[in-house]
């Protein structure tokens, strides 16, 4: 007798089906978690980008006048940097609307100054507008923070949706595992009865099912996480290779935290399976003497 046969028989077709279901749920949960994390990252970078950013438009000023206005802006308290946009940069901004052939010289274009405020300064637009007007500049100040609030609200909803999806998928996985454990227990009632009557303690019997479902959860979770990794990598590759502009897309990259999420997926699946098995078996055994 070199190796003892496990007291629970090896996996049957029911457990293969459960393996597939848990693997699929882990795939979806991992992908949803990666998406949620990506949305968080995008929200952070978008809001950081637009908050504290202003654009000052001077419709009547020439380059010299604009440079004077820039210096005035930069000397204002709470302003970190003011930069006069070149003709080429203005052309690039208008390219989506007017094409790449260049604009007629006769078309009157405003001078634009990109302004960056200090991080802790809020709503400095009216101050700038007043100072420029007092200096005789016809101007319009566009404070990006005005619409950053809309972006934040939209992203908060997106994050909530992603987190809800993760929570739903995780709880569904736990419920499916608990249901399957119960079914497995019923199918192996004979073994449980024999062990029970042989004097096995509840935790000994539960331990057999816990080990079985812990391994099943780990393996299924690993397969799901690997598939999620493949899907995420494929999406990143597709976006990058198409040369699409990703400025308004969530940050598509795999970093260390993403890998931690993928590593945690099978562990969480295994723990959920183990816990579900323990609770189900102990509760079932409590119903007999």
């Amino acid at each position: 007798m070199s190796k003892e046969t496990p007291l629970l028989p090896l996996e049957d077709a029911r457990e293969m089906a459960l393996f597939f279901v848990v693997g699929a749920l882990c795939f979806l949960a991992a992908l949803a978690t990666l998406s949620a994390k990506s949305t968080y990252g995008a929200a952070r970078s978008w809001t950081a980008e637009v908050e504290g950013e202003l654009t000052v438009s001077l419709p009547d000023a020439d380059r010299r006048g604009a440079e004077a206005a820039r210096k005035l802006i930069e000397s204002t308290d709470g302003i970190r940097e003011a930069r006069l946009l070149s003709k080429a940069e203005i052309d690039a901004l208008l390219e989506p609307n007017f094409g790449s052939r260049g604009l007629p010289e006769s078309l009157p274009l405003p001078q634009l100054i990109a302004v960056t405020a200090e991080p802790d300064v809020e709503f400095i637009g009216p101050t700038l507008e007043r100072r420029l007007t007092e200096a005789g500049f016809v101007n319009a100040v566009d404070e990006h923070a005005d619409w950053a609030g809309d972006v934040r609200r939209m992203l908060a909803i997106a994050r909530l949706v992603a987190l809800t999806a993760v929570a739903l998928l995780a709880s569904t996985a736990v419920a499916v595992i608990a249901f399957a454990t119960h079914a497995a227990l019923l199918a192996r009632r004979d073994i449980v009865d024999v062990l029970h009557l042989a004097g096995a303690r509840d935790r000994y019997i539960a331990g057999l099912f816990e080990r079985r479902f812990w391994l099943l959860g780990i393996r299924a979770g690993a397969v799901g996480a690997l598939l999620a990794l493949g899907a995420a990598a494929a999406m990143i590759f597709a976006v990058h290779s198409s040369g699409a502009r990703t400025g308004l897309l969530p940050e598509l990259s795999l970093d260390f935290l993403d890998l931690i999420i993928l590593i945690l997926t099978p562990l969480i699946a295994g723990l959920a399976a183990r816990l579900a098995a323990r609770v189900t078996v102990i509760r079932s055994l409590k119903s007999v003497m």
Partner: protein
Amino acid sequence: MTLSRHDLFDDVAVRLDGVSLRYDTSEDILSGIDLVLKPGSFSFLTGASGAGKTSLLKLLYLALKPSRGEVSLFGRPTSRLTRDQLSALRRRVGVVFQEFRLLDHLTAYENVALPLRVLGRKESTYRSDVEELLAWVGLGERMHARPTTLSGGEQQRVAIARAVVTQPDILIADEPTGNVDPEMGSRLMRLFLELNKRRATTVIIATHDLGLVRQVEAPVFRLQHGLLVQDVEYGPAARRRTDISKAVE
């Protein structure tokens, strides 16, 4: 003076005090049962099919709780014990079922060793004991066979070996000869008697096979309409008395 293990049992292996049992809302299956089994005793439990023999045995091997009354094993009222204490008590009771209840994915050897695995013993510590036990029940050559390849008699002998491998203080057998031929039934009965004599194990066997009961001089408890009565009109001595009466007539 040396104490035997029976001295520690309060001199009673099994005691039932006013035990009744009912399933759900049905009528009582068992009603006000009083029963005392002494350590080292050998007895039969008889009764018609459906009389409640299996239910009574389930109470004895702690698979069921009585609806009323108290079941005590070795002087310990089971209603006051924790689940772990009940498990510990079950280890002192061996059970043989009519339908064997062997695990098909284990070999005969592994089935017999199952209670020892449950106790957490290493295989090297019990291998020779299990092999010896299988040889004692006449299955030394078939220890690596799985139950599905064994005959009914062989399976029942594996089940008996499993029930006694921990040297239990009580052996409970529910219709142990129900699925074997009469010759095998007699052989199994000799195994039970040998166990009772060799190890002073308390044995109670439920059967409706009166032919089997008549082979042994032992008290017979009969279940009738949920009540338990002791019936002494069986066994070789009773048969001899009956034969003498017929001769006189």
